């Protein structure tokens, strides 16, 4: 699916630009984005290092494991393939907590750490495991309790009530998350049936 989506994005863009006679825009956009992607990664290096360092302390002190034990009843249902004491569980919880608090820059390092732990259970495969798909379904649709960025923008344009949208955000994300988790569950059980046949 990804191969097709990627090709459609590229090809439709180039065809439209060619028809409209702006083919030079394609070159500019492609080269600019390639450069931008590397900049994004390098911006990530420092932030990654900071949060992975803090997380290591939390891990060694047993804080992450404690958090994982607290959430265990929920986590074992969402991730039946991951042992309940596995380090991946702690990292997943940290990632989702950071997302909910609107700490985007802390969420990404925790999320990557979670993926690395899940990959250890995936026998070095280059295909996503069911647990990874569930984690990303949760992650992309995760509730943000404090949408700090957009509140900041609203404040800067002198909104009479900058936070009035928080309730609506929570409502909309809660529905998106429910659908994402249900759909993931459906996909997962379906592919499991296929696997056992």
């Amino acid at each position, binding site marked *: *699916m*990804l191969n097709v989506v990627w090709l459609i*994005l*590229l090809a*439709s863009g*180039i*065809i439209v630009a060619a028809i*409209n006679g702006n083919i030079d825009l*394609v070159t*500019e*956009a*492609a080269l*600019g*984005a*390639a450069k*931008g*992607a*590397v900049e994004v*990664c*390098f911006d*990530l*290096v420092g932030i990654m290092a*900071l949060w*992975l*360092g*803090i997380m*290591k*302390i939390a891990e*060694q*002190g047993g*804080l992450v494991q404690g958090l994982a034990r607290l959430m265990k009843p929920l986590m074992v249902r969402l991730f039946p393939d991951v042992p309940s004491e596995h380090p991946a569980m702690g990292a997943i919880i940290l990632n989702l907590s950071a997302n909910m608090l*609107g*700490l985007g820059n*802390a969420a990404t*390092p925790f*999320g*990557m750490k979670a993926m690395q732990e*899940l*990959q250890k259970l995936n026998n070095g495969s*280059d295909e*996503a495991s069911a647990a*990874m*798909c569930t984690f*990303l379904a949760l992650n*992309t649709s995760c509730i943000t309790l404090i949408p700090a960025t*957009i*509140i900041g*923008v*609203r404040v800067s344009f002198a*909104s*009479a009530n*900058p*936070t009035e949208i928080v309730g609506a*955000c929570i*409502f*909309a*994300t809660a*529905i998106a998350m429910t*659908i994402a988790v249900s*759909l993931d569950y459906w996909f997962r059980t379906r592919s499991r049936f296929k696997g056992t046949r």
Partner: protein
Amino acid sequence: MLFNILNVISTWAIPFLLLAVPLYGFIKKIPVYETFVEGAAEGFSTAVKIIPFLVGMMVAISVFRASGAMDYLTTALNPLTAKIGAPAEILPLAMMRPLSGSGVLGLATELMRIYGPDSFIGRLASVMQGTTDTTFFVLTVYFGAVGIKKYKYSLATGLTADITGFLAAVYICNVLFR
């Protein structure tokens, strides 16, 4: 009131974590600085690993946007979304939501500058910015970090969540703010 509470939480969350975790580690007799450095060392290799994935995805998305292909798709979908109570101005934002986080923020800011943050469009743009994450970025970065090339059904799940989030945002804004 709510604004003050949220503001306090979002300004204090990071300083609090930076204090609480090392302090807790110290009480637990962990060599906190050495442990920090050991964990931080993984930062570079992880960030560098995602470069090829991110280049591939960002180039495709950027070409799609800059060429005007996205505008055509938006125009084509407009009659459909007008039926559910979404103004035409908001559609580019909905199309951008799964593709680019900074793109969405830019568009939302622009809409609020033109229509004001307390207009229906301004409020809907705010809710959409606060709903669901940038599916393509998340999948690219997270799968890229561990070298996963086959995403299975996760793209379908993420995009369905984006569409659901959009519909739910339009619905709730029509109920609350119209």
